[in-house]
């Protein structure tokens, strides 16, 4: 039987933008199962990033409910949400967002610091992941010694270091050329297949979406297909 990881049920999200109330999500429902490689696509401002943030326990819906492994996220305290993010979710961002003062290896292990994981254990795990991602010779480089594609691969390793249930990626190829973009998606798909990890990827670039198991098209805060 397929395990449901995420269930989004009739979710609405309002934002205050100065004087105006923006209705960013207007009744979104979706289900994501274990091992899915899911794309959420749509034009900018359609609400796709907002949806990703809600799934990633970074924000709570104004109305409706999100179930994470069957548990309601809206009823959880911030501390519990950060624990869920730390233990069950991996994030990949558009602008890589690595910490420039740390080496690639330290960037990969940084999610484990609050859990107090032994440094040598963390490093072994990180180096294994980095080798899989073709970063074996870049372990002690700092982010500004790495190309965009390499930085994003470091970010992918970081998103997987805590052995999450689901990895969320917000425009992961937004700042690289299409060759590098394809390479990054190859790596994401590889990790998805190898570890049976669930991936949810937001993009506006339709070039890559043929690789997806499921594609949600979102427009004006609603899923249109």
């Amino acid at each position, binding site marked *: 039987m397929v395990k449901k990881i995420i269930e989004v049920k009739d979710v609405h999200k309002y934002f205050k933008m100065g004087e105006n109330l923006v209705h960013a999500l207007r009744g979104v429902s979706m289900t994501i199962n274990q091992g899915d490689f899911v794309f959420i696509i749509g034009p900018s401002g359609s609400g796709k990033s907002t949806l990703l*943030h809600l799934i*990633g326990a*970074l*924000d709570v819906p104004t109305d409706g409910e999100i179930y994470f492994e069957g548990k309601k996220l809206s009823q959880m305290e*911030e*501390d519990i949400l*950060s*624990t*869920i*993010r*730390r*233990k069950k*979710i*991996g*994030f990949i*961002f558009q602008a890589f*967002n690595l*910490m*420039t*003062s*740390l080496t690639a290896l*330290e960037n990969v292990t*940084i*999610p484990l*610091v*609050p859990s107090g994981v032994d440094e040598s254990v963390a490093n072994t795990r990180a180096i294994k992941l980095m080798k899989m991602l073709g970063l074996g010779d870049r372990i002690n480089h700092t982010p500004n010694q790495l190309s965009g594609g390499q930085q994003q691969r470091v970010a992918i390793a*970081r*998103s997987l270091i*805590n052995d999450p249930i689901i990895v969320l990626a917000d425009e992961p190829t937004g700042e690289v050329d299409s060759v590098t973009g394809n390479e990054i998606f190859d790596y994401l798909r590889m990790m998805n297949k190898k570890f049976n990890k669930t991936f949810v990827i937001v993009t506006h670039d339709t070039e890559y979406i043929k690789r997806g198991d499921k594609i949600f098209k979102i427009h004006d805060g609603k899923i249109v297909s």
Partner: protein
Amino acid sequence: MWKIAFRNLLSKKTRTLLALMGLVIAVVGVVGLISISDGIKNMVNESLGKLQGVQVLQKDSLSPMLSRVDMKIIKEIESFPEVDIVTPRVFGIASSIDGKAFLSGGMSMGGGIGEIIGIDPVKEGASGKTGFDTSQITQGRFLKSSDTYSAVLGKKIADGYKKSVGSVVELNGIRFKVVGIWTTGSSSTDNMILIPIDIARKMFSIESDKASMLTVYTKDPGAVESISKKIELRIDNVDAKSGSEYAADVSSVFGSLDIFFWAISSIAVLVGGVGILNTMLMSVMERFRDFGILKAIGWSNSNIMTLVVSESIILGAVGGMAGLAAGYTLVEIAKPILGFPMQVTPTLAVIAVLLATSLGLVGGLYPARKASRLNPIEAIRYG
């Protein structure tokens, strides 16, 4: 966590150094000021602690050098049953030694004022009870009654002017033969020169029936307090004080000086604290995006708080230790040049480092709170 904090500080070297400098200056200020105050207190206590008996001076005279007391009252005081012996002394300054102004020589010699004390060798040396401990004569001998132009030099003077027993020394234009050198280990008494009292009277133009000061030794050392009151009551125009009474006077003066020093120091500390606050606030604001990311990948508010406070505690502790080292070095350099008693006590050292560390802690709290309360989505988007 500490490792990441260190890395973050090292990644902005200039800013970290500037913040440290502000702190170092503050700590140097504290160490410098308090070392002066501690040094003076220590010197005063050391000298007053050695003071025996009761000092009798002209009423309201500011120093023994400006005081004149009548030799006649010696007999009067010695008639008190509890009194053992009364010694007269004449005090003056060695304004020139071997024709050179003492102060310039003094600078290179490690400071202090060369004090000439005219004594009665028989009364001072013979009794074995007086302030001059003849066992501290490390070369030669103490003065004796037949001496005229003979002098006992303190160790510092002897070293500074390269004198030994048998040398001739010219004090304020008069030639003396060095008969002894004494070493007390105290910077003030090692700058003293002892000569016979009659010669001292001539040197400082003091009438033959006068002395600068009398020292009254009691048969029972515990009787000094009561005898000082008795002398003031019975004899006109004199002040009589024991060492402990002096110490009480002096420490009340230094109590207020201490408050003054600490007040100036706290301003320095405050400035250092504001510096840390400013640095940490800037550094946190520059890294909003980093903190947003850390929150997104599961760091809790308190994890972020801990990271920022760790950074500022490191700043504080390193600044405190560097400031202590710089302050200590400066004090050691300044001490001989200024000829001023300065002392970095262990207590002061611990206080300085703890103070700077807690400044780091306090200065980091507000920026840390700001960082921990960030909304991760906004911090990542706009950071």
